[in-house]
């Protein structure tokens, strides 16, 4: 019997197969052990720990400025938002606030990150379900966003642009123009996305009425982000616990009704439109001023516990810092969205066919380095 599967005994006629590769050169892939009765899924057990890098433990020996860079490697598609969460948590401990200019640039970059992340997800969902061309269309727009990141932050994925007290450098002179160009490009492509994938009969048949997750289950499994919102659970941290000036921005929380794969798909598609509208509101109104608050050379948080939550592209990321007054944290805990979302996979997939498992997995939108950390 397997390590964790004691609650389930293999019955006569059932067989166990392993789905997903596991090899050191293909880091960040998910290995699922699936119990099958014919083609019907009886139980799914994800195997974790292959990409554990002990980011939490490592952070305990780093200073409050230094530990932020490692969070770019957790959920690498929302790297900027992870950095923002850490910076906000340290700022909460120091009882300072980033200047308005820094806050606004942070939000714009966060929304750009969300757009890029959802576009990669859209392309990969198509790819998983057998449509190859969406991948190229999605990467075309994503590339344009990554170029903004590269020009302003200096890196495409692992930006490390947020520091406690603001951002590392001021925006590049081309930033506003380039962002506007990209927004224009993306807005003109939404119709194309719908034509290629959303309305496609094969895609609809594979996603509709598959992988139901009720609102109660979404809450009890701790699902957040588009996965819970697809089931109609209102859980957008940007709305409920606004940070960095999200309360001054007009946007709608996108909610689904049915809770199936297609509903999760539509939540993400509509979230992209909301992100575009958020950036449009802000991009011309970046206030003048400092991009970084004055901080001491060595940051020391007062004794106590600090928690900050943000909404990444996949759900709620929580950063919990326990400080004993020293220059490095006593304990750091990350509440990563993917780990909680993955925990619902077994519940969601049971009873469906093995072909549906691909659709379920791709609409959960897992990033495995964030599961293991």
């Amino acid at each position: 019997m397997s390590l964790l599967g004691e609650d389930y005994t293999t019955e006569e006629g059932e067989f166990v197969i392993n789905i997903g590769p596991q090899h050191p050169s293909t880091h960040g892939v998910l290995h699922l052990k699936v119990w099958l009765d014919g083609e019907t899924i009886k139980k799914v057990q994800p195997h974790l720990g292959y990409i554990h890098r002990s980011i939490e433990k490592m952070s305990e020996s780093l200073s409050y400025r230094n530990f932020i860079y490692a969070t770019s490697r957790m959920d690498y598609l929302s790297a900027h938002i992870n950095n923002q969460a850490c910076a906000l948590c340290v700022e909460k401990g120091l009882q300072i606030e980033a200047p308005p200019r820094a806050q606004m640039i942070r939000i714009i970059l966060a929304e750009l990150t969300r757009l890029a992340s959802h576009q990669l997800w859209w392309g990969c969902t198509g790819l998983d379900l057998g449509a190859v061309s969406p991948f190229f269309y999605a990467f075309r727009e994503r590339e344009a966003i990554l170029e903004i990141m590269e020009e302003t932050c200096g890196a495409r994925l692992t930006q490390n642009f947020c520091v406690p007290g603001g951002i590392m450098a001021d925006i590049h002179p081309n930033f506003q123009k380039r962002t506007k160009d990209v927004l224009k490009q993306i807005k003109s492509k939404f119709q194309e996305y719908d034509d290629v994938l959303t309305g496609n009969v094969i895609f609809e048949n594979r996603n509709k009425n598959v992988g139901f997750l009720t609102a109660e289950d979404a809450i009890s499994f701790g699902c957040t982000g588009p996965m819970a919102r697809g089931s109609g659970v209102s859980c957008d941290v940007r709305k409920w616990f606004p940070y960095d000036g999200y309360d001054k921005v007009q946007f709608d929380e996108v909610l689904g009704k049915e809770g199936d794969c297609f509903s999760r798909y539509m939540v993400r598609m509509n979230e992209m439109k909301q992100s575009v509208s958020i950036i449009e509101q802000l991009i011309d109104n970046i206030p003048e001023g400092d991009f970084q608050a004055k901080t001491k050379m060595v940051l020391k948080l007062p004794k106590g516990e600090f928690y900050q939550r943000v909404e990444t592209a996949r759900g709620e990321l929580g950063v919990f810092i326990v400080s004993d007054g020293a220059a490095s944290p006593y304990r750091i805990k990350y509440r990563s969205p993917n780990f909680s979302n993955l925990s619902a996979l077994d519940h969601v997939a049971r009873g469906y066919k093995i072909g549906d498992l691909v659709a379920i997995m791709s609409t959960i939108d897992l990033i495995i380095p964030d599961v293991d950390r």
Partner: protein
Amino acid sequence: MFLTDYIRTVYKGVRSLLTGMKTTGYYFTHARKEIKTEEYPDNRATLTMFDRFKGEVVMPHDENNEHRCTGCQACEIACPNGTIKIITKQELQPDGKKKKAIDTFVYHLELCTMCNLCVVACPSDAIKMAQTFEHSVYDKKQLKKVLNNPGSKIMEGVE
């Protein structure tokens, strides 16, 4: 009734496929106009990186082989990975006083995550990020770099 539903479903399905095919067909016929791909190893001569791109840490020297590093080790402390090791020495000044100066500025490119924290921490702008990106070598030893040129001195007036 069943038949009309069936035909309607088939019609809708075929129509959705054709809508998608139309987009794909547009890009197929307008490939020359819409192509965005960079043919990377072939466009090396014209490829320029953004000026903020974080490729590797370098120490700029001027024409007199002088750098701006005072050996204060702020970058060494700021680095999360132990990428930078600064070996200092006591240098005799012309006025007879001894002054701290760098002997070797060792930079381990294999440990660097390009987080830019050392460049931000430097009080005298001695190091900066270069826009190089092809770092593959056959031997790991080649990634250990000494950033100060042999025989280099600290620039006049940098404290």
